[in-house]
């Protein structure tokens, strides 16, 4: 084929194709946009629905108890003697979550540092996988293990020695331990949130540009100094954010806590020592929801849900803000 006919061919094909192509209209673009916008709108609708549902469900208890609901310590569903105070559960929630944070955060950051800074890839890759596996274990399985296995380790290895040593003269370690208490709940919670926090922390540490580390190393800094000078300042607020997200999970966790916290009710649920039985907001709901006989009791449980909702939202939004602040720090600029 000589070049002239080739060119003619080319022109002809171009004409044919452009007839085919240019006749196409595009109404689908708009329809598609409608679909994705609808999906995005649905998520907003869900938030509104949640707020409406729990708000609507809890009006009865708030009109019955008023602000007493937040400060009362009594919890009684018996007909004629109804009293619903959420304070013990709020305290219980904060204490268990607090214990989980005190143990979980440093360990998580240690793991993250090990994975991203210390270990060679051939160790850190499978290890990260294992840690992620830990995150994939359903909380009910943690609960099962905590209830039948871990509880006894805690009692034998930690609680009894502590009780024997300090129990008589420090109220903090008072109360005979038998494993179903805030301490156990807090530790199991910490085990549950470790994978979460360490995974985020590891991503944060990985996001620190290597040039930062190399700069420190080139000045003769040790690994620890490099972390302190070049890496941590870079990710500090991010690590706080990760911890906050972990805290959100710890506060909202239900079934695991229900299984190991001992399920005390009312005033008894205010932990007086590390080895007290208690309840969290979530565990009360899980324990009593299906047994609630009166609509007031149900509404009280939903009211606990409202408190829980507000608590976790506050924590999570705080965590998100900290994380996003970290992301917004432009590379190379430290606080």
């Amino acid at each position, binding site marked *: 084929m000589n070049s002239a006919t080739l060119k003619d061919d080319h022109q002809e094909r171009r004409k044919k194709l452009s007839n085919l192509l240019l006749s196409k209209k595009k109404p689908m673009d708009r329809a598609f946009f409608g679909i994705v916008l609808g999906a995005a709108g649905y*998520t907003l609708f869900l938030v509104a629905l949640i707020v409406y549902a729990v708000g609507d469900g809890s009006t009865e208890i708030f009109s019955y108890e008023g602000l007493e609901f937040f400060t009362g310590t009594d919890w009684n569903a018996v007909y004629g003697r109804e009293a619903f105070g959420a304070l013990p559960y709020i305290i219980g929630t904060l204490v268990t979550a607090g214990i989980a944070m005190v143990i979980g955060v440093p360990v998580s950051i240690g793991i993250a540092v090990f994975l991203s800074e210390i270990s060679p890839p051939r160790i850190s890759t499978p290890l990260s996988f*294992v840690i992620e596996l830990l995150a994939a274990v359903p909380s009910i399985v943690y609960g099962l293990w905590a209830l039948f*296995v871990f509880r006894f380790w805690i009692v034998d290895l930690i609680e009894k020695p502590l009780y024997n040593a300090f129990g008589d003269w420090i109220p903090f370690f008072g109360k005979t331990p038998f494993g179903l208490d805030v301490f156990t709940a807090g530790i199991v919670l910490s085990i549950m949130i470790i994978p979460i926090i360490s995974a985020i922390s590891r991503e944060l540490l990985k996001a620190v540009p290597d040039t930062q580390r190399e700069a420190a190393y080139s000045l003769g800094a040790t690994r620890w100094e490099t972390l302190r000078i070049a890496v941590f300042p870079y990710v500090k607020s991010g690590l706080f954010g990760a911890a906050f997200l972990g805290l959100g999970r710890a506060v909202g966790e239900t079934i695991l806590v229900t299984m190991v916290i001992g399920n005390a009710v009312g005033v008894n649920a205010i932990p007086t020592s590390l080895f007290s039985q208690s309840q969290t907001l979530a565990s009360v709901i899980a324990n009593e929801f299906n047994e609630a006989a009166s609509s007031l009791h149900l509404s009280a449980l939903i009211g606990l849900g409202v408190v829980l909702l507000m608590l*976790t939202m506050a924590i999570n939004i705080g965590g998100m803000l900290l994380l996003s602040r970290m992301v917004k720090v432009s590379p190379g600029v430290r606080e």
Partner: protein
Amino acid sequence: MEKIQQEKANLKYQLQNTMERKSSRKRKINKLVTILCIICVGLAIVPLGSILFEVIKNGVSALSVEFLTQRPGSMISGRGGIGPAIQGTLITVGIASIIAAPVGIFAGIYLAEFAGNGPLPHAVRFFNDVLTGLPSIVLGIVGYIVIVLVIGSFSVWAGSFALSIIMIPIVVRVTEESLKVVPNSIREAGYSLGIPKWKITLHITLKTAFSGVLTGIVIGISRIAGETAPLIMTILGTSLFFTGFDDPVDALPLRIWRLASQPYDSAHAQGWAAALILILIVLLFSVTLRLLAARKGFKVRVIRYSNV
């Protein structure tokens, strides 16, 4: 001139001296930190090892065909099985994912491909993150109020609805992130060929981010498959096989919880076995989907979403 050089040499000597003295201390601290980190790793590994060990040890002995297929029998006898629970989990989680996956993917597409930085996408992102952090039990309450109270019965619908609320934000987030990792040049190549945007998004961008999106769905499903709390007030749990979407149904986590609260050893053994099955289902599922994703060849690096 010579004096200055002398001073310089002096300074250098002093510096080296100080550094040498400090460096042994430095090395000690460094070693200590390394050891601490390794201890942390150990602290995380030991529980995992123990959990897997116990689940397998206690679970395997109770496993049998009968256990997997039959209805629960009397708690004391240790007879019966978790058939309805397996069935219920598959149905509830299946319906939840059928709701959540498309909604999540499309909302993710909206955020990544259409939204830009206006107030609406901002709100969608923000509230999506808020949804991610909500305690699942609260979503159970929502399912109870919105569906159980309305249709007058604990039901599959309520459970699936509550679970879908847990899964949607996960899928949205992961979809958005995976789509954002797709280089813009790929989209531009599509535009430059005069392909309409919706086709570019579905046939090119989403396909490229496929493994990431799939990972999101896997994470979402694994997460809701293990959820217990919201099921308490939505599907209630029953010892019967599936009878209808408007009726209560059983689920594995719920069954494990009930078995664990029994005072009988035989029930506990069944609980372990059910936990084993639950873990196996979750693992099997995620391995299958990941293999599927890996077969697609192209990998978008996706941040692991253990936090979602």
